[in-house]
């Protein structure tokens, strides 16, 4: 029993410590954003790594998600003679929730884990120590470019997910539910235009993009923090990568709920 509580205590302590370090790292990296121009080359590299490389996966997942959504909801709606509502359901569902969540989960798996593994390998091979001795702050040299890149590309990829998902839904609606594509797209635009915010941007799209921005920051920070805390060679890097993916998944879902609650209640 004592052993169990000791284990529980240790685990909780480590979790709290990790959270504290991650929040602190975010603060320190955010302060380094002023050095963006100086690190423009690394930033461009990261924009490519975080934005272009995962694009094929994002496109495929988005297309099929839109198609599945159309198929599942379309069949049910058809039974009640309300299949015309499918465009609004897909448009709103994707822009509000599914677009940002799906993009974030894909980026967590493909980019966040990569960030943790890359920085973790640098940590265990003493490259981070070398940077510190050269008086180069890892949060400026390594974390900030990844943080900025993810904050930029996550909303962009989310927008792409929204569009491709809607088109996937359009494809299924036209072929399986016999809804004219023009009608479908008109319905999507109408449902999104019901509430407009700044500059005429639909609120549902805007809130989704804000969520995506927050998710991008979370994924980059959690990945970097896990990498910087890696120790113990290859096993340590593996552990850091795994924990970064789990933490990012959980945080994306939990923070996503609170953001939804903030925007819609």
């Amino acid at each position: 029993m004592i052993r169990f509580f000791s284990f529980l205590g240790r685990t909780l302590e480590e979790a709290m410590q990790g959270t504290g370090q991650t929040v602190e790292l975010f603060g320190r990296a955010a302060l380094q954003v002023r050095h963006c121009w100086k690190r423009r080359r690394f930033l461009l590299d990261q924009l490519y790594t975080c934005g272009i490389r995962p694009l094929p996966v994002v496109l495929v997942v988005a297309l099929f998600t839109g198609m599945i959504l159309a198929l599942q909801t379309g069949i049910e709606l058809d039974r009640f003679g309300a299949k015309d509502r499918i465009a609004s359901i897909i448009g709103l569902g994707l822009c509000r929730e599914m677009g940002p969540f799906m993009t974030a989960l894909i980026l967590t798996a493909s980019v966040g884990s990569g960030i943790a593994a890359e920085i973790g390998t640098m940590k265990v091979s003493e490259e981070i120590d070398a940077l510190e001795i050269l008086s180069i702050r890892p949060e400026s040299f390594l974390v900030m470019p990844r943080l900025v890149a993810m904050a930029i590309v996550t909303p962009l990829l989310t927008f792409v997910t929204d569009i491709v998902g809607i088109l996937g839904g359009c494809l299924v609606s036209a072929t399986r539910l016999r809804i004219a594509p023009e009608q479908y797209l008109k319905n999507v635009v109408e449902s999104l235009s019901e509430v407009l915010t700044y500059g005429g941007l639909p609120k549902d799209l805007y809130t989704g993009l804000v969520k995506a921005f927050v998710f991008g920051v979370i994924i980059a920070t959690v990945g970097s923090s896990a990498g910087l805390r890696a120790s113990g060679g290859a096993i340590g890097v593996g552990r850091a990568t795994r924990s970064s993916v789990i933490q990012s998944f959980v945080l994306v879902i939990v923070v996503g709920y609170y953001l939804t609650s903030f925007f819609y209640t």
Partner: protein
Amino acid sequence: MSDRVPPIAATPLAPDPGATAAGAEALIRLVGVHKAFGGKHVLNGLDLEVRRGETFVILGPSGTGKSVLLKLLVGLLKPDRGEIWVGRQRVDGARDRELWEIRGRIGYLFQSSALINWLTVAENVALPLSEHTRLRPHEIDQRVDEYLGKVHMLQSKYQMPGELSGGQKRRVALARVLAGTPTIILYDEPTAGLDPVMTQNIAALIRSVQLEFGVTSILVTHDLPCASEAGDRVAFVDGGKVVHCDTTEQFMHTDHPAVRNFLRGGRPVVPGAPR
């Protein structure tokens, strides 16, 4: 952003004619340093003084805290007890800003070389220059050529670290250290895993860096030829303490039983390794 690198002619690496190792003041001092990891005491009240301008070798079996000692000196680790001084600055308990300042004077050659893998050789060497100086790109390039030339690695300027051999990586890492214009260089097992010829080359390079730039060096090794080639004084560390310290020549002929035992190979470098 500080401009730590003045023009080449006035570089602080230029030898100070007045600074000689023998009788020179202590530049680095460790007083009663203790360090433990978990329950294992690695350093046990270690005292050490390194004089300005000398190459000080720390010799000893594996696992006696030699590399830990170097990491304590640059503040990568904190001692449990004791004092660590670099010049007039105290390293233990130094704040972040003070630590950055101290590190600005120290170069560290890692056993693993610790080159940034996704940067080319030239970009690695240019790091301290592009980060801490306002030199223009062509001036940085000129400096990079100069430092790579000094370690005979100019031909590999555009290669990636992954394409280099162990010895080549160490030389590039040394060029990067030199580009930071340090007054103190710490070498952590610079010849580990290298063949005898490369070992001799690295030892000669360490000696030539000291002669040309007048830097104070600490060389951690268990490679005797390297120690005798590069060192001015040698300390033998065992049980977390310095058990014997002398000039290189006298050290190699000492009667101290633990040292004699080590020099004769009486104690395996890696416990249990075939001899």
